[in-house]
């Protein structure tokens, strides 16, 4: 055991050394397609990454998730940089996407923007969509301004090798009705993709953004999303991860929610060999609200880890979390939800719920709903349950002549619906698409 842990740490350290060499080489001869204004930020981020290093095996935040394979694959793939995103067939990935009416679709392949696959970006009063590669000096400054202030090691790595990304800026009072669908495709080339999305919602503005990851083969993605919701704004943010079964996917979302605004997030993980999501929400202003919903469904030897952290900094802030997991075969799931109520955040109401369904003998779930509370005038509650399909519900269905396999699928699907339903009012097409995706996998899982 001890040897194994030491071994993991040595391997991660070796990967770090390789990555350092790659970065030094890039510094000496920068690739042509990297915007020059990113360079100082990249260097600073690399220093930060170098100092922190990959998480160690004993690191509490990484207790149940081993990142060694991510570190090693990153080292191997980064050595191949730069890869051009000129794959002609990348468009094939887009054929099964949901038929949402008049959405704005922006496509990135291997981390680089592909105008040929994206909706033409029309200059619109109030909504500005800027790929980093085409940012002018004022936009680039705004993008840099929105960098996560205290980046963790994965965010630092993303920034250090950042080549392209998308800035979504919604002006004050602008209500954007059309969904903004940002698709990140990894086409199977050995490429360490570092997708980046920065979303800035202005005062009293509304928007709906979908961050969608698709891949094939042994892809590697380290995504970072930074979100800023100004006063009285509303954002519905959907993160769909439907990557291949051999992919390694890590993602960070850093969110700041100001006074009287509402942030709703729905995170769905259907794919990935190893997936890890870190969602950190700061409720900075009074009456700020966050609703976080999540669903993952995994089988085989796959591993999904959801880490959430909500910081209540201001009075009368509200948060609600509801995460569900469905696990089968020898899949492993992790849920770690942390609510921190800081001194002064009186009148906070925080509710957390995590429910998991284990469908096979060897599936495993590790769940840890944490509360850290530093003031007294609050209401906090959390609940977590783990179990199998309800025997009585099964009996009810079987008694009505429904075959066992169908009955199981029905119950599993119903368990997932509660999360998917949160999407239905905003976009029925996307909810139907998710059900379709789920139904494809159900026979293998239930």
């Amino acid at each position, binding site marked *: 055991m001890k040897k194994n842990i030491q071994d993991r740490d040595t391997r991660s350290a070796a990967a770090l050394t390789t990555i350092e060499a790659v970065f030094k080489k890039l510094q000496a001869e920068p690739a042509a397609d990297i915007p020059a204004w990113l360079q100082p930020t990249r260097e600073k981020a690399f220093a930060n990454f170098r100092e922190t290093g990959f998480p160690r095996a004993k690191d509490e935040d990484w207790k149940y998730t081993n990142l060694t394979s991510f570190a090693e694959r990153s080292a191997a793939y980064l050595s191949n940089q730069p890869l051009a995103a000129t794959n002609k067939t990348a468009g094939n990935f887009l054929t099964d996407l949901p038929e949402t009416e008049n959405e704005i679709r922006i496509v990135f392949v291997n981390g680089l923007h592909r105008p040929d696959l994206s909706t033409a970006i029309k200059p619109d009063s109030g909504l500005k969509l800027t790929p980093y590669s085409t940012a002018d000096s004022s936009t680039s400054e705004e993008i840099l301004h929105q960098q996560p202030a205290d980046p963790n090691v994965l965010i630092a790595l993303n920034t250090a090798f950042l080549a392209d990304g998308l800035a979504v800026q919604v002006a004050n009072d602008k209500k954007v009705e059309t969904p903004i669908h940002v698709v990140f495709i990894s086409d199977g080339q050995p490429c360490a993709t570092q997708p980046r999305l920065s979303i800035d919602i202005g005062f009293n503005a509304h928007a709906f953004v979908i961050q969608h990851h698709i891949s094939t083969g042994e892809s590697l993605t380290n995504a970072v999303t930074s979100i800023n919701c100004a006063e009285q704004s509303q954002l519905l943010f959907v993160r769909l991860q439907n990557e291949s079964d051999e992919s390694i996917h890590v993602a960070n979302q850093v969110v700041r929610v100001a006074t009287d605004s509402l942030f709703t997030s729905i995170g769905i993980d259907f794919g990935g060999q190893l997936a890890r999501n870190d969602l950190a929400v700061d409720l900075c202003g009074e009456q700020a609200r966050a609703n976080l919903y999540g669903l993952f469904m995994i089988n085989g030897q796959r591993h999904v880890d959801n880490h959430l952290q909500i910081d209540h900094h201001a009075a009368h802030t509200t948060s609600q979390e509801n995460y569900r997991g469905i696990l089968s075969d020898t899949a492993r799931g992790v849920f770690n939800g942390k609510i921190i109520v800081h001194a002064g955040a009186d009148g906070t109401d925080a509710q957390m719920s995590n429910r998991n369904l284990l469908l096979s003998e060897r599936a495993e*779930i*590790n*769940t840890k709903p944490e509360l850290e*509370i530093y003031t007294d005038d609050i209401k906090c509650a959390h*609940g977590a349950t783990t179990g199998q399909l309800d025997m009585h519900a099964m009996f009810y269905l079987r008694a009505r002549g429904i075959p066992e396999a169908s009955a199981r699928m029905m119950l599993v699907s119903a368990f997932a619906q509660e999360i998917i339903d949160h999407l239905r009012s905003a976009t029925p097409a996307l909810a139907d698409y998710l059900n379709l995706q789920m139904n494809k996998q159900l026979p293998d899982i239930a």
Partner: protein
Amino acid sequence: MPAKNSEVKKLVDKKYRHGFVTDIGSDTIPPGLNEDVIRLISRKKDEPQFMLDWRLKAYRHWVTLREPDWAKLDIDPIDYQDISYYSAPMQNDDGPKSLDEVDPKLLETYEKLGIPLHERAALAGVAVDAVFDSVSVTTTFRDKLADAGVIFCPFSDAVKDYPELVEKYLGSVVPYRDNFFAALNSAVFSDGSFVYIPKGVRCPMELSTYFRINEAKTGQFERTLIIADEGSHVSYLEGCTAPMRDENQLHAAVVELVILKEAEIKYSTVQNWYPGDEEGRGGIYNFVTKRADCRGTNSKVSWTQVEAGSAITWKYPSCVLRGENSVGEFYSVAVTNNMQQADTGTKMLHIGANSRSTIVSKGISAGHAQQSYRGLVKIFPTAHNTRNHTQCDSLLMGKHSGAHTFPYMEIKNPTAIVEHEATTSKIADDQLFYCRQRGLSEEDAVNMIVNGFCKEVFRELPMEFAVEAQALLNVSLEGAVG
């Protein structure tokens, strides 16, 4: 005015009524820890060779360890070389043959503490083993228990009288390699209680141990080992107090419970070590390792604890549910006020099929106190049809108090049903208003609400303890409101 002043003084004194020091001659070895000290302790206790060997192994392992730092506690560094590892009240070489020979000052101390050491004990029906500083002073009712076949004696006697039992079970639940404080305890422990309940015996009375730290600059390291043989039953209580002092004193105990087929142990603790003053000066560091091993089918263990004292508490009574149908229970009330810190909880390790566990943890945090519940429920792949329900509620009193929850659930069997619920809140204004409207003073109203909040746990305590616990709660929270 003077009358009022004396009233006030009484109130202040009431806060920690066990804070006195007994002036009694004692045999205390100089501070410091090395192999010679361990040999000296072992020699003083006239122990067989196997004990010394075990202590030395533990010590050699301990020096390779670092203090654990994962708990949410702010601990001033402890100088382990500045602690005296052995202190005993001075007495005749032969030791007391009956209560009459025990130093009257000592008896007076126990009188003050309200322990039924004398004939009163008969009325209370409780057999008491009292540990003063490092050694066990007297054990009452030994003969009556012996009739039933129950062994209840100081650990040091057990080592001499029943070496085969001690050697077989010592360290089998909490090995000396377990953790930093368990290793330290294994190396230097001076005394404690030993209980053996033979097959099929229901212990005729409640057993109780009273721990008292008296001497300054000493650490107390006691070790309790209870073995419930097949089909037996025992209820065991422990209580603890210490004088008020400005420096921190270390208490690192180990409790091992072995529960065989169809046996049951009920273990209750009322912990009231000196918590330090309002500014957080002094108080006991209570770093305790407690574990129960349910080895046979249908075995059962129940931990009930009321944690009111100590400057810092680091304590996680655990249940290893190895046997089929075994049951583990954990009921806890932890109260922290002023600058107290507590990081406490439990571990339920479900290994056997159909094992069940219940966790009810109530935390009350007032003043500037910080309190954490830290728990693990682990369902092993072998544990079919297991059930766990965890409920942990926290009550906050005061803007600067903190309550934290760190529950871990690791589930590797699909037939398990594991539930966890937690809430954190303060006393609702409408509850308080309701009571005040009916003429209760604010303090009485708060006491009533808090007692209601803890009722689920107090119900599990033996009657005399429940009364004491309730009173203790009221004292601990004094001044926390308003």
